């Protein structure tokens, strides 16, 4: 008993207790990240195509789930059979007991295509403009040979559609607006000049369209004859094939190749099929962009507020009340900020901006609708308390002797703040920014009201003047997760996308934080590594 009390007094037990709790927390975090990563990353690995015989006929597909027998329910196996255009659904549950003699036929294929999800079956023939070129295994190798070329053509078409055609459309639209303005003024000469300009643009437009048509025809020239496992035939232009995966005939290296190419497609490409396939690059880009714009807005806002509160305001009950209010702002539910952003920024500010500067294009709103600027501003408001608190602490931590040294040299208060106090507090300010990024990058609710969309036609940063389009709507990883997981017509197929997008969101947040941490480390080194 005495030894027990002695031990308690020395506190060794509490060291163990707190250490264990820490280990528990770390384990939970690792578990979270690991689980999401495993669920998401595994999705891209080509799994074997299994063929089974059922009373209704043969079934070919990937095994995606098992359910054990429970009460009257028998055990079931979930197959991803693909061919949504033929079967009407991607997945089938089959009673496990009826699955006799599962086989992995070497010639079974999974064909990723632009529409209707993957095709699972066999290639029987390859034709060029209606003429049969090859059948059987020769058709398959012929298709694999032709695929890179058709993919290249498809990319070319896409880039023209997005780049040149979009650009031309914008120019024609601008001329139309200018025309409307001139018509009211009745400036004939200028109108004629505009007309010739429009005619020129129209010619270019037609040329581009012709070359597009050519490319499209080229893409459609080659056709695959396909057959499902239960004998249904399907014609598919090679131009709409993304990837052919003969999963059962591949070695480890080939599979790794497919894995990496799918991963790259996911990170770097645009989404397809209402976001359930393809990549999520616009969402990654939108998230990063929004966080950057938010950072640019929140730092001056928060730092200047903190400077006034800490350095200039007379410390009294009013300042204390303001400080409490600012801190409480951090506790307001984010959707409330979203509603505020919609009412104040989008309708109020944006509406007025449209009235003043973009009256020509009304009733189509320019800034009077959700956009990346308003979303970032709303998030900046949401995260400003974090920056204010961190900055105030940093300012308070600057040694009094430093301020006195500067003032004794004859510096004014402002010179002292600008030359001594603020530089010494930048690491603390960056700590605030890091916390703000962590909070802001994960918010979804306020964004849904202020500018996030399911699919944005163009990015907020591109090659057309003025390059940075803060009025545009954007995609966001957090919203993407919600949209794909819960709003998608084919949510079962989109499930792995949810995990993968979550994992990427984590990666994006970590990368942004590492960036800020690195900046802070460099600043600290320059400041002599003293405070903080």
């Amino acid at each position, binding site marked *: 008993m005495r030894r027990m009390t002695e031990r308690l007094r020395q506190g060794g037990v509490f060291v163990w207790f707190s250490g264990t709790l820490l280990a528990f927390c770390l384990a939970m975090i690792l578990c979270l990240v690991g689980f999401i990563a495993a669920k998401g990353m595994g999705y891209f690995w080509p799994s074997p195509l299994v063929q089974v015989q059922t009373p209704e006929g043969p079934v070919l597909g990937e095994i995606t789930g098992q359910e054990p027998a429970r009460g009257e329910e028998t055990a079931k196996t979930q197959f991803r059979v693909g061919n949504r255009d033929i079967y009407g659904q991607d997945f089938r549950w089959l009673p496990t007991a009826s699955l006799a003699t599962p086989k992995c036929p070497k010639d079974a294929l999974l064909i990723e295509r632009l529409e209707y999800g993957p095709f699972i079956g066999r290639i029987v023939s390859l034709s060029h403009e209606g003429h049969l070129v090859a059948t059987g295994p020769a058709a398959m190798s012929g298709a694999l040979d032709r695929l890179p070329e058709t993919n290249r053509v498809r990319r070319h078409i896409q880039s023209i559609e997005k780049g040149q055609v979009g650009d031309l459309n914008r120019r024609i639209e601008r001329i139309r607006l200018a025309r409307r303005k001139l018509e009211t003024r009745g400036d004939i000469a200028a109108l004629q000049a505009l007309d010739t300009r429009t005619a020129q643009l129209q010619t270019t437009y037609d040329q581009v369209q012709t070359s597009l048509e050519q490319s499209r025809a080229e893409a459609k020239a080659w056709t695959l004859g396909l057959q499902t496992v239960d004998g249904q035939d399907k014609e598919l232009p090679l131009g709409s094939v993304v990837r052919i995966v003969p999963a059962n005939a591949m070695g480890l290296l080939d599979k790794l190749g497919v894995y990496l190419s799918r991963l790259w497609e996911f990170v770097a490409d645009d989404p397809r099929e209402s976001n359930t396939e393809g990549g999520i690059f616009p969402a990654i880009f939108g998230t990063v962009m929004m966080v950057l714009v938010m950072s640019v807005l929140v730092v001056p806002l928060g730092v200047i507020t903190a400077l006034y509160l800490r350095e200039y305001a007379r410390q009294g009950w009013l300042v204390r009340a303001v400080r409490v209010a600012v801190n409480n702002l951090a506790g307001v539910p984010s959707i409330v900020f979203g509603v505020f952003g919609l009412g104040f920024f989008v309708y109020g500010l944006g509406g007025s901006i449209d009235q003043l500067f973009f009256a020509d294009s009304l009733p189509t709103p320019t800034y009077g609708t959700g956009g990346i600027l308003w979303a970032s501003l709303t998030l900046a408001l949401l995260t400003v308390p974090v920056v204010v608190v961190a900055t105030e602490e940093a300012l308070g931590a600057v040694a009094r002797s430093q301020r006195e*040294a500067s003032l*004794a*040299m*004859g510096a004014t208060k402002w010179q002292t703040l600008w*030359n001594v106090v603020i*530089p010494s507090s930048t690491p603390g300010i960056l700590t605030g920014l890091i916390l703000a990024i962590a909070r802001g990058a994960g918010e979804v609710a306020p964004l849904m009201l202020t500018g996030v969309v399911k699919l944005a036609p163009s990015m907020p940063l591109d090659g057309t003047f003025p390059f940075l389009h803060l009025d545009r709507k954007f995609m966001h990883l957090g919203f993407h997760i919600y949209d794909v997981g819960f709003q998608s017509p084919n949510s079962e197929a989109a499930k792995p996308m949810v995990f993968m997008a979550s994992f990427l969101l984590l990666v994006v947040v970590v990368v942004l934080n590492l960036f800020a941490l690195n900046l802070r480390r460099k600043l600290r080194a*320059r400041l*002599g590594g*003293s405070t903080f």
Partner: protein
Amino acid sequence: MEIEDPRPVPEPVLLQVPPPSTGLRPASLQQPDLPLTDPSVLSAPIMLQVERLNLFYGDKQALSDIHLKVARNSVMSFIGPSGCGKSTLLRCLNRMNDLIDDVRVQGRVLLGDTDIYAPETDVIALRKRAGMVFQKSNPFPKSIFENVAYGLRIQGQSDRNLLEEAVERSLKGAGLWDEVKDRLKDSAQGLSGGQQQRLCIARALAVRPEIILMDEPCSALDPIATARVEELILELKREFTIVIVTHNMQQAARVSDHTAFFWMGKLIETDLTEKMFTNPRQRMTEDYITGRFG
């Protein structure tokens, strides 16, 4: 052990005083309530003059009725036990006490011809004339060069040649040039404690002040660094007037021409240093110097 002062606290004479005259003011000498002042001080031109200074922190009086004169190109040291008001007085001389809320100052401080507490006096301009060196060395987290150039930079000086010239002159003046001339771009916080303190002195020299106020500049330094700073003070005397607060009686004896002894917010005695240390006029001074109290 409060000593009652029977004299009434004089009225503040902030505004009704006639324009200050330079040099001698025999009238004030004849006032019987002045602390004993060595006449030899008055033979040299006066740089700094404190008249009837009272200072209050809220209700608490921290300095009462201080009269003091500092001659040009001399070193005056303030000694006295902790809390006696010597640092407070030093900070009155460049109005650093303005930074503290709740401080009231009555009386007059003349730096040259300027009454530094007159309402029209520009504090910023004043502080450029009175450089300050603190107890703990406080270089900015900038390069050595930028530390010394700071005072000129905030005055709007950006001519590279002028700055370089001033930095070299100040560093030489502070006896630091040979040690740092090859690493002016390095951070000042990489210097040793003694070097940092001399850098702070160089920083104060760069704006060519008239008077340098030193608040226990050696209390955080080792004996060798202390000796260097003391040598430096003796050299700087040729060009500047120096007021130094110190706890170290030997230091006061080594570096200063005049010494002022403070006790409980009052100036007890001021005299030539050698006289004060050999033959003090007040009993209390003798007790303090010989270490019988304090």
